[in-house]
């Protein structure tokens, strides 16, 4: 065969086609790139220098579809992709939830929390104890303050706190005493009155400023996409080591995936409860058995295994070439 019937197109057009082919996964480009460009050039009308918009869009869409595609006749790859989607969406939701909480009003420091407590308690007691608690596994951190007092009057306390800028709040599980808000913070006051003394508890937590749901949903969506794309890439490359580490990652991520989705559902069902997703990764008793850090440990191990999986899949050499016959010029 001579080269006379081979396409001779404008180099600019060829460059445009090669650029559009970047929408395809790299192994696919390595396998089919030259062949697709040849066909595109053969189909191009003489004199064309740029791809038509519809043609460009179709190539990009086909490339994106190829990235999501799972090999035919491999049901295990399909199962793995669904599990990876679930794990990815759980991790993404946690990341989105964490990002949302970073936009909340910062919690007061221990000095400021003690000052708020003194206003609520109405006494300048010296034995104030302040703790910042993680809030895991269901909500974000809180500043918890406790002190012993002699007497307490709720009306006077409300007036003192109102003078300090605190306004009444409606919350899902109200305190029998006081629930107030100020500048994105929720203050809960509980006082236990005994025969000769009382104990005052104040808890300050940050309120959702409206960012939690959109950022968590966005994280969930992006995580799901990432999970599916990783699973599809591993399946397409047919790398046995990557498949094994990928399967191990899914096993390791199973428990934290469940825990994270449990919180995600709770958070979306009860948006005013202050639930967060990432808080299940705080050392806490989400699971009845095992150490407190089990979710955090498993998620770190799972993400490391995922990184190894991606690296193994990326370094997988291309498939064997077919016999190529060089055509004489």
């Amino acid at each position, binding site marked *: 065969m001579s080269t006379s019937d081979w396409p001779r197109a404008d180099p600019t057009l060829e460059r445009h086609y090669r650029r559009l082919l970047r929408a395809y996964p790299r192994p696919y480009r390595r396998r089919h790139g030259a062949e697709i460009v040849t066909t595109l050039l053969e189909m191009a009308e003489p004199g064309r220098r740029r791809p038509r918009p519809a043609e460009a869009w179709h190539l990009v869409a086909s490339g994106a*579809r190829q990235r999501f595609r799972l090999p035919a006749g491999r049901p295990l790859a399909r199962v793995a992709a669904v599990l990876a989607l679930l794990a990815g969406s759980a991790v993404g939701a946690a990341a989105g939830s964490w990002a949302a909480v970073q936009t909340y009003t910062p919690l007061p420091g221990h000095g400021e929390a003690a000052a708020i407590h003194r206003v609520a308690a109405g006494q300048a007691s010296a034995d104030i104890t302040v703790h910042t608690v993680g809030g895991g596994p269901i909500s974000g951190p809180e500043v918890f303050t406790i002190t012993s007092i002699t007497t307490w009057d709720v009306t006077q306390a409300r007036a003192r706190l109102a003078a300090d800028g605190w306004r009444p709040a409606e919350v899902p599980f109200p305190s029998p005493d006081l629930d107030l808000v100020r500048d994105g913070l929720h203050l809960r006051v509980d006082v236990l009155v005994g025969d000769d003394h009382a104990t005052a508890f104040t808890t300050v937590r940050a309120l959702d400023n409206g960012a939690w749901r959109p950022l968590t949903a966005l994280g969930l969506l992006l995580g799901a996409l990432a999970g599916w794309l990783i699973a599809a890439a591993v399946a397409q490359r047919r790398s046995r080591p990557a498949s094994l580490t990928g399967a191990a990652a899914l096993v390791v991520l199973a428990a934290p995936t469940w825990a994270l989705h449990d919180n995600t559902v709770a958070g979306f069902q009860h948006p005013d409860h202050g639930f967060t997703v990432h808080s299940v990764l705080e050392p806490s008793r989400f699971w009845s058995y095992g150490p407190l850090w089990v979710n955090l440990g498993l998620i770190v191990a799972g993400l490391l295994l995922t990184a190894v999986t991606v690296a193994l899949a990326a370094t997988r050499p291309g498939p064997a070439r077919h*016999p190529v016959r060089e055509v004489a010029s």
Partner: protein
Amino acid sequence: MQEPTFLILTALAARPLHGYGIVQSVLSLSDGEVKLRPGTLYGALDRLAEQGLIEVEREEAVEGRLRRYYRLTDHGASVLVTEATRLRRRAATAETQLKDRTAPGFGGPVPGVA
């Protein structure tokens, strides 16, 4: 089986073809109705190769251009025969139904149907 898949297998039934050859053959087989775009064509070729219905026969390369010739496997030919038989049966059923059809309100056969 979708029509483009059926037409690709049909195009490869007679002889091995490269990408552009398949596009031209499908266009001709479908009386100009189906013009495959490269994204669709190579997606389908990849899938059909994975299913063992087609395989690469040979490659030709010149100055950075590459033509890969695909051929129908025995399994692909068998699947194509089955599909062609199924479509023939469907067409025969449709013709039978049309013959039995009567024009509404007149009781006679539909004009143009033998």
